């Protein structure tokens, strides 16, 4: 029966030769090559749980009196968006576990994409001919950030409303066109009535479709260009040494999907995330504290907290303060990242196609720059919780902010220099790893 069915399909589509070719395709072995797949499965879980949530979520900000299971808010005026999230959390069967899985999967999704990008960067996998996939991957990361933020804002609770207020101020700070932009995006003065509905369309339709499309292209290009591999015995620029898609990689991939599902389900079931009922409904006159964004926007929040209160007036226009940390900084960050493959090719003069990966030590300058950059964003990220640190250490928040400002300027170059020395020593001695590095290699600088 199955045989006849497959024969019937094959006669019409001629799929068997393609399937055979596909299933026999060889992928190289390395654990880090599964990072992207990890992100892919997080996305799949996000789509599945997100569809469930969209059945119950109501993106409307019109208000009604809450009468539901959550006793402390009984009789309080809340938006329908907030109310539907309370209902999802307290009344819809499996609603809360779906909500929590969705949120956990989102946090892990972006973490996995980020680590995947680091792997690509430090192994030089973005070099010719893979620049296009670097651009697509980076766009996927930005779309992930965008969808994280838009989803985080949908429940219309006090914490996320505060995030939206920051976003509104950031848009306002764009010189000349800021005011118009803010009104265009939000549909009026904050807290604008339309923003939740618009974010809903962005969150469940526009961005996910873009992500799905770009992910397909991302994978198709990997397929077409073949996966990179680390140098090793028998591995050359012209071959791929590894295992076939069927059965090895299909099995590994399935296992990974089940693993991601398990971790997300365990977290979703056992660890509370975003208890919006405690934050309360959004009110324009209220502000919560401590107020951190989800982790992936921590660097922007930290930049806003660290940037000195400078404002410049020129030609009758004001350059408002949030412009530098929240528009200029991410603008420079993402442009640098987009341009990196081309900048590096220009600086090194290496325009040859590469299919063998580099180790971090093979390119000490790139590794050092990468670590310095990471250190910079790590300090910004840490600064996003300066108030919590102040509370825990009982040190005034102003002193902590100043310490972070100094650290932001000092830590990246120091980290970069140390990395350069270590990578250079590794390259010269050929030691297996940092732990095997002889001390003498660190004290001598000159090339032997």
């Amino acid at each position, binding site marked *: 029966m199955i045989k006849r069915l497959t024969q019937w399909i094959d006669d019409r589509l001629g799929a068997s030769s393609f399937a055979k070719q596909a299933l026999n395709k060889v992928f190289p072995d390395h654990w880090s090559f599964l990072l992207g797949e990890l992100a892919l499965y997080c996305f799949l879980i996000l789509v599945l749980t997100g569809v469930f949530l969209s059945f119950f979520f109501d993106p409307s900000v019109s208000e009604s009196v809450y009468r539901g299971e959550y006793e402390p808010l009984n009789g309080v005026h809340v938006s329908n968006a907030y109310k539907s999230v309370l209902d999802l*959390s307290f009344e819809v069967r499996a609603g809360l576990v779906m909500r929590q899985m969705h949120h956990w999967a989102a946090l892990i999704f972006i973490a996995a994409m980020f680590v995947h990008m680091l792997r690509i960067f430090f192994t030089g996998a973005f070099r010719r001919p893979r620049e296009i996939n670097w651009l697509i991957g980076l766009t996927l990361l930005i779309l992930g950030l965008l969808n994280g933020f838009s989803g985080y804002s949908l429940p219309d609770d006090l914490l996320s409303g505060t995030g939206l207020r920051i976003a509104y101020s950031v848009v306002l700070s764009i010189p000349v066109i800021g005011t118009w932009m803010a009104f265009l995006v939000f549909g009026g003065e904050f807290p604008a009535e339309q923003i939740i509905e618009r974010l809903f369309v962005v969150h469940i339709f526009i961005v996910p479709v873009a992500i799905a499309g770009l992910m397909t292209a991302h994978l198709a290009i990997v397929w077409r260009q073949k996966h990179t591999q680390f140098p090793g015995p028998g591995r050359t620029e012209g071959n791929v040494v590894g295992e076939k898609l069927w059965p090895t990689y299909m099995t590994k991939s399935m296992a990974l999907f089940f693993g991601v599902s398990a971790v997300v389900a365990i977290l979703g079931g056992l660890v509370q995330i975003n208890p919006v009922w405690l934050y*309360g409904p959004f009110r324009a006159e209220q502000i919560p504290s401590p107020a951190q964004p989800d982790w992936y926007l921590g660097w922007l929040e930290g930049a806003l907290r660290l940037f000195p209160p400078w404002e410049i007036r020129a030609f009758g226009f004001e350059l408002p303060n949030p412009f530098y940390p929240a528009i200029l900084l991410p603008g420079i960050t993402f442009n640098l990242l987009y341009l990196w493959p081309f900048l590096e090719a220009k600086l090194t003069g290496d325009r040859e196609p590469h299919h063998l990966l580099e180790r971090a030590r093979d390119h000490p300058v790139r590794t050092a720059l990468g670590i310095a950059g990471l250190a910079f964003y790590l300090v910004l990220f840490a600064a996003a919780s300066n108030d919590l640190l102040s509370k825990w250490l009982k040190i005034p928040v102003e002193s902590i902010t100043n310490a972070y400002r100094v650290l932001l300027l000092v830590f990246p170059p120091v980290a970069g220099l140390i990395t350069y020395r270590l990578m250079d020593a590794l390259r010269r001695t050929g030691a297996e790893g940092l732990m095997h590095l002889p001390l003498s290699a660190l004290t001598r600088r000159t090339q032997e």
Partner: protein
Amino acid sequence: MRRAVFGYLLVSVLLAGCAYFGDQTAPYRAPGVVEVDTVTDGKTLYMRDCAWCHGNEGQGTENGPSLTTGTNGPAMTDFVLSTGRMPINHPDQRVQRHASIYTPRDIEAIIDYMETFEAPGPDIPSVDPARGDIGEGAELYQDNCAACHASTGIGGALSVGGSPEQATAVAPPLNSSTPQEVAEAMLVGPGTMPVFGPETFTEHEVNSILAYVEYLRDPNNRGGLPMGRIGPWSEGAAAWILGLGPLMLLIVWIGRKV
């Protein structure tokens, strides 16, 4: 962090010691005597523990502020003594919550004695959170308290704007405060906290806020581990350590050559 913990333990031990000896040195009371001259008892305690900094008549010294001005009065005294904020061993010591070294009767005695200072501050309020409306309390709490004490009542850092005497101010967590203490703090505005007196809230509103604060001590933790109710900070840490961490181990395991 370790130093902070050590310091905290040290202070706790010292205070426990104080509490122990405090009880030891309490004046002898003949059994069966019902009428106790609390004013005399209070004076003894006041002279022993308070007068050193605040002066014999509460007039204040260079070591401590006057107790006869501002919102000082029975509510303030009850608040600082029952939350263990006073006494401190040294004028520079941080004023923060500790186990009180006094019995309720001692505190009553000290307050009775201090009545003779005729301080203008409010009397000890009588509260009954059960008569409040928790929904109203939630809204009032978010409006007036959450900006400093956090939506979840865990407390938070305060921005002090360069004022040196407030440089170490934090809004304390509310999860170990009794409704009585919260009501007293609202009346007198200790430290950097503003006064939320009868001009601001009616008795019913105060009771509503107290009901919500009491609820926040053990709120609905549907969804699982609350992780300190710090919000996205602990969620981000968990996403990396409990989420991506095990998944990285998994890919290291299944990514091995077969």
